């Protein structure tokens, strides 16, 4: 693969964590394996039909792999989130992802506050979250808007379009435009390759502008290789043509890889550590100090309270229904009791009549 000129990262053997989030079937697993050029993640196994309709929860699992990018060794941790978006109700899955991210922050916060710190403590904070959008061709779905909105304050969110080979070039261009319009409209603070016109040099401004214009990245992944012109190429073979993963005309994969594992790795890390973590830390510490004062509402909490309100409404309605059923049941029970009592009366009358008859006719 040709090496594009890039800024060198002075540090050797860098630790970097990427989380991939997206509904099943958006190409997450294949992307990760394509990125790492090896079977880091195993594909969804769905052997028995009994499990097809079973709603499993989300399973967040990290995997480690060693990569070399442009002479630099990277200790990459990939966190996959299989099971997201598959259930009928996906609210719980949201919470799980959020909790995972915050737990890593909590861990390091606790570690930093220790008197005797562990020199071999593993920093598991997620530096970049790749969110896989389904290529509908329309705009973002409610689930996409909700999740990205909630996660963006905690992690660098980079939206990508999975299985982008299902869109024609014209459809892709229009789709990208609409997705970015949605992101703008709903104020979703994604990682958009920020640059400072005054401070940064010409080359990096150019670079960032290009990358920003490519958002969301159109990804095609493949674990299969075929021979094209004597070379082994990663590709997807269709009856009507061959999609090459590493061909920039066919997919943005190469550019994305170069950015997150190369040119912008440092930026993503420092943003996570210096900005996102610090924000979380401040919020958490001030919350524990002023535990009874609910100030500085975090965006994700607002979203949570809204859905809580809707849920409360639903609960109230269901409670009312249950109460009506209860009342009806009570009424029926009372009626039956009346009938029973009436029957008992008649029975007692019969018995007393029989008894008096027996008395009157002694043998």
């Amino acid at each position, binding site marked *: 693969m040709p090496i594009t000129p890039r800024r060198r990262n002075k540090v050797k053997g860098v630790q970097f964590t990427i989380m991939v989030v997206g*509904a*099943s*079937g*958006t190409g997450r697993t294949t992307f990760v394996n394509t990125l790492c050029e090896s079977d880091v993640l195993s594909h*969804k196994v*769905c052997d028995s*039909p*009994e499990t*097809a*309709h*079973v*709603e499993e929860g989300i399973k967040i699992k990290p995997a480690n792999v060693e990569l070399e990018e442009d002479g630099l060794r990277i200790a990459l941790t990939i966190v996959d989130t299989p099971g997201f978006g*598959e*259930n*009928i*109700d*996906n*609210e719980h899955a*949201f919470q799980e992802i959020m909790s995972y991210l915050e737990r890593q922050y909590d861990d390091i916060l606790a570690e930093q506050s220790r008197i005797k710190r562990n020199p071999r403590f593993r920093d598991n904070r997620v530096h970049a979250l790749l969110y896989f959008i*389904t*290529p*509908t*061709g*329309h*705009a973002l*779905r*409610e*689930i996409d*808007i*909700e999740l990205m909105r909630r996660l963006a304050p905690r992690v660098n969110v980079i939206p990508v379009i999975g*299985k982008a*080979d*299902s869109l*024609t*070039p014209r459809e892709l261009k229009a789709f990208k435009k*609409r997705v970015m*319009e*949605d992101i*703008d*409209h*709903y104020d979703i603070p994604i990682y958009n390759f920020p640059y400072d016109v005054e401070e940064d040099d010409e080359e990096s401004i150019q670079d960032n502008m290009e990358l920003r214009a490519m958002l969301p990245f159109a990804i095609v992944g493949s674990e299969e290789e075929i021979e094209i012109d004597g070379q082994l190429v990663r590709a*997807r*073979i*269709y*009856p*009507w*043509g*061959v*999609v*090459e993963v590493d061909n920039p*005309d*066919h997919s943005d994969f190469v550019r994305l890889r170069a950015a997150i594992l190369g040119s912008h790795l440092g930026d993503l890390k420092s943003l996570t550590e210096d900005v996102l973590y610090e924000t979380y830390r401040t919020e958490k510490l001030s919350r524990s100090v002023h535990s009874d004062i609910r100030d500085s509402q975090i965006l994700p909490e607002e979203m949570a309270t809204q*859905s809580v309100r809707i849920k409360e409404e639903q609960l109230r309605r269901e409670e009312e229904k249950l109460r009506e059923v209860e009342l009806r049941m009570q009424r029926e029970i009372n009626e039956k009791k009346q009938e029973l009592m009436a029957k008992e009366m008649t029975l007692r009358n019969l018995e007393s009549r029989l008894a008096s008859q027996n008395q009157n006719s002694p043998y």
Partner: protein
Amino acid sequence: MSVPEEIRADSYVGFDSITQQIEHKLLKRGFQFNVIVVGQTGLGKSTLINTIFASHLIDSKGRFSADEPVRQTTEIQAVSHVIVENGVKLRLNIVDTPGYGDQVNNENCWDPIIKYIKDQHSAYLRKELTAMRDRYIQDTRIHCCLYFINPTGHSLRPIDVIVMKKLSEVVNVVPVIAKSDSLTMEERERFKAKIREELVYNSIRLYPFDTDEDEEEEVQLNEQIRTIVPFAIVGSENNVIIDGRSVRGRKNRWGVVNVEDETHCEFMHLRNFLTRTHLQDLIETTAQIHYEAFRSKQLLALKEGVNQRPQQQ
């Protein structure tokens, strides 16, 4: 009573022209076909309908601008058209279900759909039972439900299993794999095998059904159809030029998908199945199986209600 013996008249009578007499009457009246499309936004439902009938019949209900609000529930939208082909008038009712399966919480998003289908049976029954009823009752009963499966390549989702099961109890369900041009041939076959396994396991009864009346060739045709279901389809309202011919297709940087090519996708199979071989059967089974089931349940319930009333007094 035994079946009367068939006899041949001594000379030509001419009553065999009744087939033309019927055809003439039917052509004047026209035919009614109602179809509902169910699936998540962006799976190409509107495009497929427009491709099948080779006309722009319905618009996509997707959200195309950031200002448009996100739909919070499943809506039911019906559109009517009349298409004429060689003097045959086809009245089409296309029911779209925007908002289905698009929310974070999709509990009961299928209720409006099931209700709509049952409401059409109910409306027909009411008209049937009216003392002074119309000569020809307007048929709004849904004859076919196209269920769109996401081309994940893995298996059915829990929501697909639940909804297809419920739908198959009230309407003829024909599942299709949407946007199948995102799957390689290998992936497609594996996906289909998985789906078929799961449909069988969950006892989801799909159209076509075999009845005792069917002849040998009909049974064979149905078997053939069953080996293709779910149909892997690609839709397009745009034309591309392939080998000098203008066909409906999708042009990419790496090739051209020909919608009408059977080696690319199964659109032609679906189109022929729906319009050229099973159109009449779809209408008939809706009346004879689904509507009858609904009708007997309703009438039995009515009878129960009538019987109970004198007791309560």
